[in-house]
């Protein structure tokens, strides 16, 4: 038996017979990586610390271009809306802007961020159920394309448009049953119950708003391309019906997102290489259905609507990794190996539903065993991988956790631990910090301690002093 000199306490494991796994043990021992996006993992950790998010610009741009090309080859008039909530680190949003994507935002904050990053209002699609009066006024004045979620929002938009004496083109979000996915019926206007028609009637009677878009989103990590074909069919039928009844011309047909990435959902046994269809299969299903549904327009000599897709996860998930270090190891009472990492569900919210691929960063010898990877939180649920075949890890060893680009840099938690640096490897191979690691000043910047709670003898300097000044007088 070989050893590479790394100490692991002696251990004996009884052989258990009869527990059959038809997929066998998937070994990671042969899957050693020492570089990520062309840069040494050890060098990156030495420079930026651990844990560390690393994003590959070349990989991201290549993936975005591949997906866009899939759609553009099949349908002339396409636009991609970059779903900000997937990853709204500023550098990421700038890359997507440079790649020609619209900004798809769903909140005041996301709208303001897109504008602050230089995206003109006319290149913003504004979705979401909670748009304040103030942000709607700004979005309308700046020419953003708003897709309304409910009647109260429609009334607000109409009032604002009236006040500005503008005719505002908007879209409405729909929800309906495709028969493939669980309907997301809490968002938008329901088609089957007549709410969607009610909204259309309301808009038709308005002097200030014009219906120019239909929007729907059928779910997330949708593994069945036919679901999109059905979605587009339903939307086209509604479009045809509306254009026949009212003085309406739909310019945007927005199908939302939900395309899967090459991550492994915990509930699915098949590896993603088998379970996840190619993006071209989705593009085929969507564009064929769209061309079929728009035949009537061609016959009438009218232009086809613009297809908007708001893919986030499929664009970026595979272009970002998380480097994490082992801080301790132990044997669980049931005999399984366990390792504690410096990154857990605080940084990888998606570990709750994915089995993220884990790669070793040095060669190992010895027996691979079922191992649990825990994060650093004082919470039992902080599990990165519940069961993975790994050799004996040592404190200080680094692991590379792949496919973390979607929803982690936005849904990560400021809980117990500081959030680490996020580094971009540029196309020329240079590394740039695109989000600095947090420290105590960041964590305390928003705190304010009333005078009667201040520690005696302590100078009252809390967080960012300029922010403190902005607090209401009562709290100072």
């Amino acid at each position, binding site marked *: *038996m*070989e*050893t590479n*000199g*790394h*100490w*692991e*306490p*002696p*251990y*004996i*494991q*009884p*052989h258990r017979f009869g527990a059959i796994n038809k997929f066998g043990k998937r070994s990671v021992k042969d899957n050693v990586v020492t570089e990520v996006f062309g840069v040494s993992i050890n060098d990156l950790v030495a420079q930026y610390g651990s844990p560390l998010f690393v994003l590959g610009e070349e990989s991201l741009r290549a993936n975005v271009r591949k997906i866009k090309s899939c759609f553009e080859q099949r349908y002339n008039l396409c636009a991609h809306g970059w779903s900000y909530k997937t990853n709204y680190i500023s550098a990421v949003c700038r890359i997507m802007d440079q790649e020609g994507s619209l900004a798809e935002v769903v909140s005041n904050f996301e709208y303001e961020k897109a504008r602050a990053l230089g995206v003109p209002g006319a290149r913003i699609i504004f979705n979401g159920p909670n748009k304040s009066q103030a942000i709607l006024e700004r979005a309308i004045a700046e020419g953003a394309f708003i897709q309304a979620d409910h009647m109260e929002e429609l009334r607000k938009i109409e009032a604002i448009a009236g006040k500005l004496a503008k005719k505002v083109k908007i879209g409405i979000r729909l929800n309906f049953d495709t028969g493939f996915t669980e309907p997301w019926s809490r968002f938008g206007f329901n088609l089957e119950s007549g709410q969607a028609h009610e909204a259309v009637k309301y808009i038709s009677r308005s002097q200030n708003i014009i219906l120019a878009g239909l929007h729907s989103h059928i779910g997330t990590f949708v593994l069945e391309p036919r679901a999109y074909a059905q979605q587009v069919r339903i939307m086209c039928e509604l479009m045809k019906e509306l254009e026949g009844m009212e003085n309406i011309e739909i310019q945007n047909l927005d199908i939302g997102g939900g395309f899967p990435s090459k991550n492994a959902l915990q509930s699915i046994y098949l590896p993603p290489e088998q379970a996840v269809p190619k993006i071209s299969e989705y593009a085929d299903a969507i564009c064929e259905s769209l061309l079929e549904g728009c035949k009537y327009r061609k016959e009438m000599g009218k232009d086809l609507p613009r297809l908007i897709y708001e893919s986030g996860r499929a664009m970026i998930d595979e272009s970002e990794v998380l480097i994490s270090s082992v801080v301790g190891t132990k044997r669980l009472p049931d005999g399984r190996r366990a390792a504690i990492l410096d990154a857990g569900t605080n940084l990888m919210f998606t570990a709750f539903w994915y089995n993220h691929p884990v790669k070793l960063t040095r060669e190992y*010898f*010895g*027996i691979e065993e079922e191992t649990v990877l825990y994060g650093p939180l004082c919470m039992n649920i902080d599990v990165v991988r519940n069961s993975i075949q790994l050799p*004996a890890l040592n404190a200080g060893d680094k692991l590379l956790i792949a496919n973390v680009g979607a929803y982690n840099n936005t849904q990560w938690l400021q809980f117990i631990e500081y959030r680490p640096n996020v580094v971009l490897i540029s196309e020329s191979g240079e590394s740039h910090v695109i989000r600095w690691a947090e420290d105590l000043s960041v964590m305390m910047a928003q705190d304010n301690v009333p005078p009667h709670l201040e520690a005696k003898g302590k100078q009252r300097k809390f967080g960012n002093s300029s922010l403190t000044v902005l607090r209401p007088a009562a709290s100072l």
Partner: protein
Amino acid sequence: MQKQLAELMTTLNKNQRLSKLAISEKGFLFDPETGQSFTLNYSGMQTLNHLKRGESLEDTAKHLADEFKIPHDTALNSIEAFLIQLGRYI
């Protein structure tokens, strides 16, 4: 714990129980008395081989400490914990 270890070593040495264990060079362990088989990791295999040769816990710990360049106490603690685990199976 020392009393538990002493009793365990007595049991393992009784009727040459320890020396009868068959250990392959890859860490496969077969217990001919019960018919059960086990896998040992490298340090577990080294530990058992030393003990089978009649070496003391102290001497075995010294071998491991030298080989892995770890403190003697660390090696000894781990060996004692390993023996308690072994006692549950053999």
